């Protein structure tokens, strides 16, 4: 276990999200065991590890889809353990999924507008009678969505159904939907999987741009070592539900334990796109 030698290199000192002793058990299988993670404000943290290491489970616990058996998730100093996904996004954590989960029969713009749902208030009566306040809010929702769709270069497809756009575009659309919820922490589950090299380049540039221009922190699961090495400020390695190493990318990359547990298993080495992405 690397004892945080790279701490000094991490941007900023405020911890944004912290998990303490997180444990998630499915039936007899301990998917995540006593897992600690801390994410600092403004950094890009990559969670890596072989398939089945429990990375996605950590995401699902953090974003409220699963309830952990033990341990806590603390976001901005507040416990959010066991909160529902729709409450967690209000707190400021938005996510994407490993297998894209858009609203296929809704337009791209509507998909992004869904992200603004949690920042709007209009109730039943206001919506039925279209009160001025509700209309103002709708305009704002639309404005945010339109800004975000331009940001991911999908303006031309705004009225297209989400299921009809290209795979790479769907991935970006999903990120845009998450961004539309005005998150402080963006949680991306394998954002580069299934993308071609050009799209991956664009994605990296996009994420770095986000960090630069917005008050945002990014947590991602990634198999593509180019992405991990290229954009991460900090890397955490998981295997069999446990954290086995962490540190700045280069350090982790050269850590023998990590190479054995993770990279060693991949014969092609870490330079490739990594394990088959679904």
């Amino acid at each position, binding site marked *: 276990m690397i004892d945080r030698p790279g701490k000094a290199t991490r941007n900023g000192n405020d911890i944004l999200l912290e998990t303490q002793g997180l444990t998630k058990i*499915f039936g007899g299988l301990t998917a995540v065991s006593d897992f600690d993670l801390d994410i600092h404000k403004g950094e890009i943290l990559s969670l890596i590890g072989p398939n089945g290491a429990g990375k*996605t489970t950590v995401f*699902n616990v953090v974003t409220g*889809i699963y309830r952990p058996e033990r341990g806590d998730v603390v976001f901005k100093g507040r416990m959010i353990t066991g909160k529902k996904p729709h409450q967690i996004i209000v707190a400021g954590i938005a996510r994407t*999924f490993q297998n894209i989960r858009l609203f296929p029969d809704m337009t791209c713009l509507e998909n992004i507008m869904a992200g603004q749902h949690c920042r709007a208030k209009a109730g039943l009566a206001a919506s039925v009678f279209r009160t001025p306040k509700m209309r103002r809010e709708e305009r704002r929702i639309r404005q945010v969505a339109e800004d975000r769709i331009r940001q991911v270069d999908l303006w031309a497809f705004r009225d297209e159904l989400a299921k009809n756009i290209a795979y790479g575009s769907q991935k970006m659309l999903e990120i845009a939907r998450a961004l539309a919820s005005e998150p402080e922490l963006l949680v991306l589950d394998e954002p580069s999987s299934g993308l071609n090299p050009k799209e991956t380049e664009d994605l990296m540039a996009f994420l770095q741009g986000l960090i630069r221009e917005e008050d945002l922190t990014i947590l991602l699961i990634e198999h593509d070592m180019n992405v991990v090495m290229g954009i991460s400020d900090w890397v955490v390695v998981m295997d069999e539900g446990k954290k086995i190493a962490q540190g700045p990318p280069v350090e982790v990359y050269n850590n023998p334990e990590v190479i054995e547990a993770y990279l060693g298993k991949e014969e092609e080495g870490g330079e490739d796109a990594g394990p088959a992405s679904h």
Partner: protein
Amino acid sequence: MHLLLEQLINGLTIGSFYALIALGYSMVYGVLKLINFAHGDFFTLGSYLGYTVLVFGTALLTAHFGLWGGMMAATVVAAISVSIVGIVVERLAYRPVYPAGRLPAVVSALGASIFLQNAIMVIWGPRYQAYPSQLIPNMHFQFGDIFITLLQIIILVFSFLLMSVLYYVIQRTTFGAAIRAAAHDRHTAALMGIDFNKVILFIFTLGPALGAVTGVMVGMYYRQISFTMGWNYGLKAFTATILGGIGNIPGAMFGGLILGVLEMLGASYISAAWKDVFVFLILILVLIFRPTGLFGEKVAEKV
């Protein structure tokens, strides 16, 4: 105590009706994820066909095969004819609609049900029809102070026989494994070389046939049949299917039996008029605590 046991036997009798019909629902649902609303009408059609054979063919059949032979003939004729209808309905009403997804198929199934029900009404007329009386000698046996009729024994034995055979076919044979595989994951099953059309053919032969046989038994048991009875039995059988865990074959059998027993216990200990309310309340309670039925697998959605 003796009321309880007697009601238990009555409950098992109608429970086996529900179970046999439920098997048809469950097989179709398992493989196609379709609620086959027409299934209740297969049952009615079987009942009417059996009625016709018994009423108009009795003299002839009995002359050749004896009374028992006549009844067997009625059952077999009903089963075979209804499986043919089942296959035809599948080809004409369901197959063209599958590609469009589940919901259009539900409407199509409702359409098929309306069609069949009204076809039965057009052919046999809107009034109740009565099965010939005294088909089976009105004998009963006494165990302690419990009475059980010969007909009940025949129905129970025959139903359990049918269910055991089906259970064996589904759980123990290669073809049954193919059906279960198709129910579990149709596309992977197809990749493994399972002929999906054969599976559909099988379930649409066997399901309606079981329904038809049940129809004949219900006709003999209650003696009165109507063209709308498929709705009621269908609804109960569908309830049984869900109670057991939809798509689960043994679950459907037990669901049917449990439902029948609950209904009879409700009728005798609560009130006959409220028995169905009792049944549905139990169903709802079961589902609140076991959202996928009594024997249904807990499916955790992969995220």
